């Protein structure tokens, strides 16, 4: 099968990915250690989170070398999660505002 052939990558590749994940994690931790706050904190957390997730999915889990058939199966359903996040964020805001209106009475 073609996968078996495509599994041959030098060990060095994994060590590089490992190092990168370490560096990104260290940066994430530094965000908390130096108590960066507010919008900058959230931006930095996301900036350091997404490359980590991307590296694990594409290199460690080999999705990069998989066929498009599998990629679509894995990623199309995630749009449902994106919709759920948006809906629940709106709902959470609504609940919060409602509580502000009625909890203090």
């Amino acid at each position: 099968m073609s996968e078996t052939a495509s599994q041959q990558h030098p060990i060095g590749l994994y060590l590089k990915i490992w190092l990168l994940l370490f560096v990104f994690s260290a940066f994430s931790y530094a965000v908390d250690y130096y108590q960066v706050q507010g919008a900058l904190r959230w931006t930095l957390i996301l900036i350091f989170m997404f490359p980590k997730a991307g590296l694990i999915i594409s290199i460690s889990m080999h999705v990069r070398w998989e066929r498009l058939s599998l990629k679509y199966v894995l990623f199309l359903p995630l749009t449902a999660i994106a919709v759920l996040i948006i809906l629940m964020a709106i709902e959470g805001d609504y609940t919060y505002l409602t509580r502000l209106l009625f909890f203090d009475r």
Partner: protein
Amino acid sequence: MISETDKSATYTEPGVAGLVSDWAADRQTFDMPWGKIMMWIFLLSDTFIFSVFLVSYMNVRISATDPWPNASEVFALQIFGEYVPLLLIAIMTFILITSSGTMAMAVNYAYRGDIKKTVWLIVATALFGASFVGMQAFEWSKLIEEGVRPWGNPWGASQFGSAFFMITGFHGLHVTGGVIYLLWTARRVSSGYYEGKDLAIVEIAGLYWHFVDLVWVFIFAFFYLW
């Protein structure tokens, strides 16, 4: 049913044309062992479970009127009389990443046919995983001692406890299950159970383990750092 011998298809056509022929041609859609596609389907469903946990955490955190406990302080450890924020969590993160690295190498050696290195790298991965669970148990007992409960805690919004126990507990169960799964895989590989077959089974176990690491990336960012 598609017979094992039906390998007339080549699965080499790239891009969208390949996607169409994979799905439309008279052959199995996914060019991989059945165990691997089953693991992917399982991981996709697991993605939804963890997403729902994290989304519900987001929802209760947005809607909480009490202040949310500051994770940086809650998870601080006292080292030499000084409070270091999130120290244990950072160590756990590095351990899990390292275990992911050893797992990737195990998969690589499995495909090279180096059984001995494969087994030892899987065992190393399992040991890292076990130490992760140990630290989590320590963290849980520390928080429970300080009065964190699913229905309340000394610092603020009571939803903090339920989100914490559900999310990290479910992830911890995954790691625990993964350690058992890995040790079982290592035992089978070393006993020669797969002799003469390809070691795709190691890759499949690896997918699960990397996924557990992937979930931690999101938990670390959204629960501990946010």
